[in-house]
């Protein structure tokens, strides 16, 4: 039907980069050894896992001994949150998170609540940012853990993680950051920022699915949630996913390279071009999240008088892959809790759209998306009883 395909859903997942795939391939059939074996097959696999650990650590300024590999970002979030809460439950039972976290964090906190912990959920402002004073006033003498995402997946806004880290560091509270959307996309240093634990995911940065990483600052004690053979310093038992971990290492290398060759700056230019095109050429179209304090590849909107799923399917028919936080795409009747937490009305939240650019996105892609979206919005508004400005 369409001659052009433009994938703009990199917040959902990215394609494994060719260099990453090449790095992984030998570790399926040739170098298939179990990294825990003493023989040559095992030693080769162990060496590959160790090298990957160095690369992932270097991406965020950590030491290799501080990185634990997991089966993905969700598992790393669960390990960090449940692991830290249980390791410190004798010191206190109060834990803090925010209203706009990913479900992997929110649902882990709900589970902690079931286990007798007390949870405080911090509100956000209209741009999806947590207020530092809200964090300060939520902290109690028995607070043991704070978890805050680096950048939001739906609206792209950065949280004030450095300030939050300082506050937690000063009070001896463990500070976890879900960095799934941010890691590999913006340079930062966990040590300088005072982050105690950081979640990362390979498939959000041109690596394979099914591999995550958790940075745990030296000295921070957590309980494992998977028990067994004692791999990953006893914090994540199970034979290492060697090929996947090698892929994560290669993806981390690629990301580090993109920090220095101007790629991120170009991504920001293209993102801003899309934001400006959409908000200036489409009436009643609003950027969601912060205008500047946002992920370099992330542009999200609410389009008035329209519903997200209908726009997504029309975009899909034009060869464009995007996503939405509308009720119809989530399978519930409620639109995105993130947009509602920002104070956006139900009606407008139903019309949410997210375009997340990738390293191969071009200026032509942006123009193609903006032009098609404009047409699709006009076509669907001609059907919408809510759209008043018809002429």
């Amino acid at each position, binding site marked *: 039907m369409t001659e052009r395909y433009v994938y703009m859903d990199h917040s959902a997942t990215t394609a494994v980069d060719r260099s990453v795939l090449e790095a992984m391939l030998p570790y399926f059939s040739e170098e298939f050894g179990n990294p825990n074996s003493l023989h040559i097959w095992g030693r080769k696999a162990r060496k590959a896992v160790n090298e990957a650990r160095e690369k992932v650590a270097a991406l965020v300024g950590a030491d290799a001994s501080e990185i634990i590999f997991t089966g993905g970002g969700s598992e790393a979030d669960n390990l960090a949150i449940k692991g830290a809460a249980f390791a410190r439950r004798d010191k206190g039972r109060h834990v803090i998170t925010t209203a706009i976290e990913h479900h992997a964090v929110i649902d882990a906190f709900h589970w902690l609540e079931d286990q007798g912990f007390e949870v405080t959920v911090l509100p956000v402002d209209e741009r999806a940012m947590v207020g530092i004073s809200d964090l300060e006033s939520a902290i109690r003498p028995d607070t043991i853990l704070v978890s805050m995402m680096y950048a939001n997946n739906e609206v792209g806004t950065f949280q004030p993680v450095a300030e939050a880290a300082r506050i937690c560091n000063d009070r001896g509270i463990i500070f976890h950051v879900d960095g799934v959307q941010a890691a590999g996309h913006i340079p930062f240093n966990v040590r300088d920022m005072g982050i105690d634990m950081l979640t990362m995911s390979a498939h959000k940065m041109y690596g394979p699915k099914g591999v995550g990483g958790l940075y745990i600052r030296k000295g921070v004690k957590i309980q494992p949630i998977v028990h067994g053979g004692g791999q990953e310093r006893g914090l994540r038992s199970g034979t290492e996913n060697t090929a996947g971990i090698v892929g994560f290492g290669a993806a981390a290398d690629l990301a580090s390279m993109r920090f220095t060759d101007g790629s991120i700056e170009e991504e920001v230019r293209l993102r801003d071009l899309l934001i400006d095109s959409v908000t200036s050429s489409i009436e009643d179209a609003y950027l969601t999240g912060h205008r500047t304090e946002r992920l370099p590849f992330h542009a999200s909107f609410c389009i008035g*008088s*329209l*519903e*997200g*799923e*209908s726009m997504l*399917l*029309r975009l899909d*028919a034009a060869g464009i892959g995007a996503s939405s936080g*509308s*009720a*119809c795409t989530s*399978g519930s*009747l409620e*639109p995105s809790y993130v947009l509602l937490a920002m104070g956006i009305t*139900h*009606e407008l939240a*139903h019309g949410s759209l997210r375009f997340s650019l990738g390293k191969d996105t071009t200026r032509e892609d942006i123009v193609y998306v903006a032009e098609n979206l404009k047409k699709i919005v006009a076509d669907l508004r*001609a*059907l*919408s*009883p*809510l759209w008043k400005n*018809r002429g």
Partner: protein
Amino acid sequence: MYTEKVMELFMNPKNAGRMEDPDGVGEVGNPRCGDIMKIYIKVKDERIVDISFETFGCASAIASSSMVTEMVKGLTLDEALAISNKDVVNALGGLPPQKIHCSLLAEEGIQAAIEDYRAKRKAGVEAKA
């Protein structure tokens, strides 16, 4: 997730748009839930001679609107009232379970338009008497 028929009507809906001087208008759903369906009808001798819709909602809501307007066009009002949401779902070749409410809106939209027409007519007759 959607049948070919649903996608076909969603991409090229029939009877779409506002109608000038309708004899009856029915509006169901609410924007908070993300679905509004507005049905316009023209009636002659107790028969729906023209119909159109405006819908704010997902693909299945738009396809259900298009389908139900095609189904009732030319029917008498009583025949149109007998069309159920199940008939709409069947004509679409099925809808995912969480989208059945869209077909219900289609059924209710037709009913609301006919009720509006009958109420106006009754009021008109009483005004003349």
